[in-house]
């Protein structure tokens, strides 16, 4: 039985462009923001990355699911994206760890999949027009329902992203090996490997809800705070941004990743902007001004911090994207805080900047020595 005998499925973009392909994963209809990622490996990590909340993700690499899925390579326990679009999925995966086909994996998580469309044509459209809302559906788009769907697409906004997926309660993950530090990890939709990168370095990791306040944190007495990645428009997290102003004042070393980086900038008076089609993939070059080195990084973001919007007295841009020169990192001058737009925890993608976790821990060491 060929995968190409599967039922039909469709994607319609807000501009009315429709792509007819075939269905895999779950059946149904979902509306989301259509984005593309250029990563060539790591589809399971991508699927389980909470930052894709509310989005329909297109893989530009045409062959997906080649090595199946397994129990280990997840970045969270669920799939938060609304839909998943590939050119071809592999029904005969081959890898010693493979336990499931990607089709089942999607079905199990109720995620709607679409394949056998010209994903490059779709990607080029998104590149030219910027990201667009779209509907992915296994129900035919008829002249009758088309207008209604388009109206829904026009109205769709990703809302309450962080609040929806952040943990309601604290949870402690002990260090692998002897404990050296205690780090509070703000869950804005954190990726598992951020937690694991810290645990591997001797950190007890305490996951805390997004809206945790400075006072609550002070009681927890962490050695450091990590602001995680997460989905959505950073600006909608008004309360979190407010809290962060006070948290900074605690003087505890802070590292921010992706959304965490954006929220910190907003908390410190900076501005963010929505990019045309974002940076998603494992090949983005980032220049580190301190060393003059360029690093290949993993990225997944649609918003960016405006470097110029930061007060030079308290912050300096530490990293920029070598291609479009957008802000990729900020070093704060008055407090022990640094944040990066990219993902040092990788997964999927290159781990070339994993040393930033070590930098964070050195910052904590220094703080401890000072005390």
């Amino acid at each position, binding site marked *: 039985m060929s995968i190409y005998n599967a039922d039909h499925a469709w994607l319609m973009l807000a501009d009315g462009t429709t792509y007819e392909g075939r269905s895999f994963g779950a059946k149904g209809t979902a509306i989301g923001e259509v984005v593309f990622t250029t990563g060539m490996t*790591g589809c399971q990590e991508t699927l389980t990355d909470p930052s894709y909340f509310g989005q329909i993700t297109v893989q530009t690499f045409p062959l997906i699911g080649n090595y199946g899925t397994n129990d280990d390579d997840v970045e969270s326990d669920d799939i938060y994206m609304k839909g998943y679009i590939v050119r071809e999925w592999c029904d005969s995966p081959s890898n010693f760890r493979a336990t499931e086909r990607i089709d089942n994996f999607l079905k199990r998580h109720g995620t709607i999949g679409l394949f056998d469309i010209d994903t490059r044509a779709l990607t080029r459209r998104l590149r030219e027009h910027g990201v667009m809302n779209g509907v992915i559906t296994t129900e035919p788009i008829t002249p009758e329902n088309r207008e209604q769907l388009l109206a829904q697409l026009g109205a769709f906004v990703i809302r309450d992203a962080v609040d929806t997926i952040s943990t309601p309660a604290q949870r402690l993950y002990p260090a692998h090996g002897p404990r050296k530090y205690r780090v509070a990890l703000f869950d804005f939709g954190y990726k598992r490997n951020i937690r694991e990168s810290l645990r591997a370095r001797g950190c007890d990791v305490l996951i805390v809800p997004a809206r945790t306040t400075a006072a609550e944190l002070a009681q927890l007495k962490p050695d450091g705070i990590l602001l995680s990645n997460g989905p959505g428009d950073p600006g909608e997290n008004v309360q979190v941004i407010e809290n962060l102003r006070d948290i900074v004042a605690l003087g505890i070393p802070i590292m921010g990743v992706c959304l965490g980086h954006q929220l910190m900038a907003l908390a410190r008076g900076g501005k963010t902007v929505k990019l045309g089609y974002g940076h998603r993939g494992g090949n983005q070059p980032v220049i580190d001004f301190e060393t003059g080195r360029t690093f290949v990084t993993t990225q997944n973001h649609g918003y960016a911090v405006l470097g110029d919007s930061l007060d030079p007295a308290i912050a300096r841009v530490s990293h920029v994207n070598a291609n479009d020169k957008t802000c990729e990192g900020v070093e704060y001058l008055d407090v022990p805080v640094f944040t990066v737009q990219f993902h040092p925890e990788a997964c999927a993608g290159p781990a070339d900047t994993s040393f930033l976790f070590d930098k964070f821990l050195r910052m904590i060491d220094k703080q401890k020595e000072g005390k």
Partner: protein
Amino acid sequence: MPLRSDIKKVLMIGSGPIVIGQAAEFDYAGTQACRALKEEGLEVVLINSNPATIMTDKRMADRIYIEPLTLETIKRVIELEKPDSVLSTLGGQTGLTLSMQLAKDGFLESHNVKLLGANPETIDKAEDRQLFKDTMESINQPCIPSKVVTELDDALAFADTIGYPVIVRPAFTLGGTGGGIAGDVDELREIAANGLRHSPIHQILVERCVSGWKEIEFEVIRDRKGNLITVCSMENVDPVGIHTGDSVVIAPAVTLADKEYQMLRTASISIVDALGVEGGCNCQFALNPNSFEYAVIEVNPRVSRSSALASKATGYPIAKVATKIAIGYTLDEIVNAVTGCTYACFEPAIDYVVVKYPRWPFDKFVYGEKKLGTQMKATGEVMAIGTNFEQAIMKAAQSIELKLSSMRSPKMMQESDEQIMTRVNTPDDSRLFAVYEALYRGIEDVEEIFRITRIDRWFLYKFHNLAAVERQLESGRLDEILYLRAKKFGYLDSSIRKLSGVDPAPFHREAVYKMVDTCAAEFPAETPYFYSTYDDENEAAEFIGHHPSDKKTVIVFGSGPIRIGQGIEFDYCSVHCVWALKEAGYQAVIVNNNPETVSTDFDTGDRLYFDPLTPESVDSILATEKPYGVVVQFGGQTAISLTRHLADKGVRILGTCADSVDAAEDRERFDEILEQCGIPRPAGHTVMTTEEAVKAAESLGYPVLLRPSYVLGGQNMVIAPNAERVVEYMGIITAGGSLENPVLIDKYMMGTEVEVDAISDGEDFLIPGIMEHVERAGIHSGDSISVYPCRTLSERIKNTIIDYTGKLARALKVSGMVNVQYVVYNDEVYVIEVNPRSSRTVPYISKVTGVPMVDLATQIMLGAKLRDLGYGTGLYPNAPYVAVKVPVFSFEKLTGVDTQLGPEMKSTGEVLGIAKTFEEALLKGLVAAGYKLEERGGVLMSVKDADKPEMVKIAEKFEKLGFELYATPGTALALNNQMVATNSVRPMQEPSPNVMDLIDSGKIHYVISTSKGGADPKTNQSVRLRRRAVDHSIVCLTALDTANALADCLLSKKQMADIDLVSITDL
């Protein structure tokens, strides 16, 4: 920091002749390097012995030396030209090794020359087995348990401790020469001894065999600041155990989860960092398919065959970037020329898959050992791009020039299940097709075939998918959905028709074109580099629409994979044609499928289509491009084969028309033309059957020359001395069913062979030079030593040749290039063949005469008149130099192949010697070709009866030179009878010590061996004798003319140091 201010003049060392393991990819790399240097305003001095390259073209460098790539010569060039730097990493292993020698013996330092691209420490860490192991250990990168040994006994002892099988890898050899896998003590004894002999430092590595593990490669590029990116990952379809050059490869790696992928990517980065490479580097890993266990196999700290593939696969120009890094730039300063808006520090992301398929020479070398192992055997490769693996591998099969249209080999379709499974069990050049056949028939399932071959199940399932579509087609129920599915899987319309019995015309769709842009469409790219697929959007059509031009478009069809008979020369011609078209105000479009070449560089043509050169593929390109005209005469037989198809479609073929091509190939029509012109040719006939052949041969009188029409490189050409051979030959050639084209059978004349390349506009003609072969007719022109200008021909003969060439050009209405081969026999000139297209001698003759042949031919095709082009007509005045082209073979890599030269071409490449006299030029040529020209020692002779009388005077020359003469009994008797004192040596069938022991003893420096029998080493002793000489790297001459010329060369007592170096830019 941009360009280093202390660099003004750079010496670039090329890679020399094309041999197995070092092919056109280094012309591609070197050409990119030269351009990158010149772009920076640097003066470039180039040395390369290979005249067929584009890099040795006047526009590529300021000073060009086509001279032997020896240490002495390079030192002289440095003394003469006084460059301030040497670029070491762009000229393959040859260039790198020479650079390191220059650096290590202090020559560079004492002449104030900087070494760019690599430092000796880096190279030693990567290439010296022990240092490499130590380095890997220091950064916790696992290596395969191994030991460096310099003695056979140590190898045996170590193998005992790690257990068999073990792999033997000789240090510092090309393409793994002399290596192999030993399954037991006896095998190790042989392989290790051979490896030690081949290693210039007498050192081999004995290691644990991880055959069957996945073989994964990463191409890394690093700058002096330590910025690194991986350009591309590649996965070998054939697991560890088969040389990567002989493996089918897919890019990117597909069966690795991100965890494994990043593990190896990170390992690559740590390795390249630890080695301190500044430039390109290739890292090869073995990965256990059942765990995260891996081992570093090897690292090549230079631009390589894999980097050429990675460049073409991604659009990222590794050689260019490596060059910029070598002269001071860093990755973040180098703009990605493909997008124009990203930087070289951006890792390419691709949205297609690429399959590389090797091209082996076993269609020529039927008795060669086809089994693949650690010794590379392929002469070239093709690359195919597709949106899925099925499509890409099908395109690759259609591109390798073995007349395949799918993964089903017509030959194997006739074989029994048992025969197929035997093939599946044997890793050779055709195994993948046997694997497909086995899956198609369902002889065994994926699991069992995986167990046997260790080819990852992923690939086997893809074959399964192809087989399923093929079966569906065969059911005869063709509909639009199935048609489109088959198209997306790479099936040609003709195959669909054949398989389904249904005409697919009602469903027909043209292919669309997608762009190769380095970034998976993330950024708008300006590179018009396309591949075909079946999809919605045609980006090529869009690109053409967005770039309106009043220039007319011309498509140049390339020459496909490098193979014996069709080498890099045709790429040279294609590229020159493109340049000439551009200069003449046309848009030039290239279609080709060879990743090693300059023609497939993304900025050579105005647009590039990386696709098969099949009629259907070409049709789709024509539909998108709607060209003014097309050019077929520069792409060798590959392009010429399209002529009929294109003409039938009514496409404007620029240059000589299809009808003339046919007239030159069709025996009867050609005879008519010759008769009209009053030009004699050796008597001959065309035949279709064995009976006709024997009858014809008998009427002509033996010996006769047999060959199929429409061939290049003397494919399947033999000289038959009797009816028996004629019957045998016809049996082989008709084995695949009845003939499409007739067999030509000619009277064989053993005279002087002369070759002419001419340019004509149908009225006037220009012959840049007449070339004369050292060897008499009977040896393929590609394998003969060729001398320009001709040296023994009388004025009358020369004038006859000029006259005939002009007559032929006019009669065939040649517009552009024509190649004519003559034989001068009993003071008469006969035409052997006429090819109205470019030939393999065009690059060299263009370079030594200064006549830009391809350029002129292209202008003529576009309507110019020869007499207006400024180079005159008739024979062009002789250059004040003699140029000798010497063929280069790769026999040491091809076990079991007879080295006896004959009408079928065997050489893989060529070198050129340029000097004032013939002897000097020949000496240069022989040295450049790698002949070890010992001035004293021993000569062993064993020649067929017909050659014995002539052997005498050559033996006398060696005797006069003070050589000790040895010969097998018959030859010795003949020589002693003529008073040439010769030691008679026992033949090999007699007990030791016999002739084989003599060869092993090291006393022999030249072997002169000719034989009339077959080429099978199992039955022919002469073949075995010659093979033994090859194994010992002893100069082995199989034509008396070559031996005689070599003896004369030695007698002239010239030394390389006495002969002036020639910069062809001064000619």
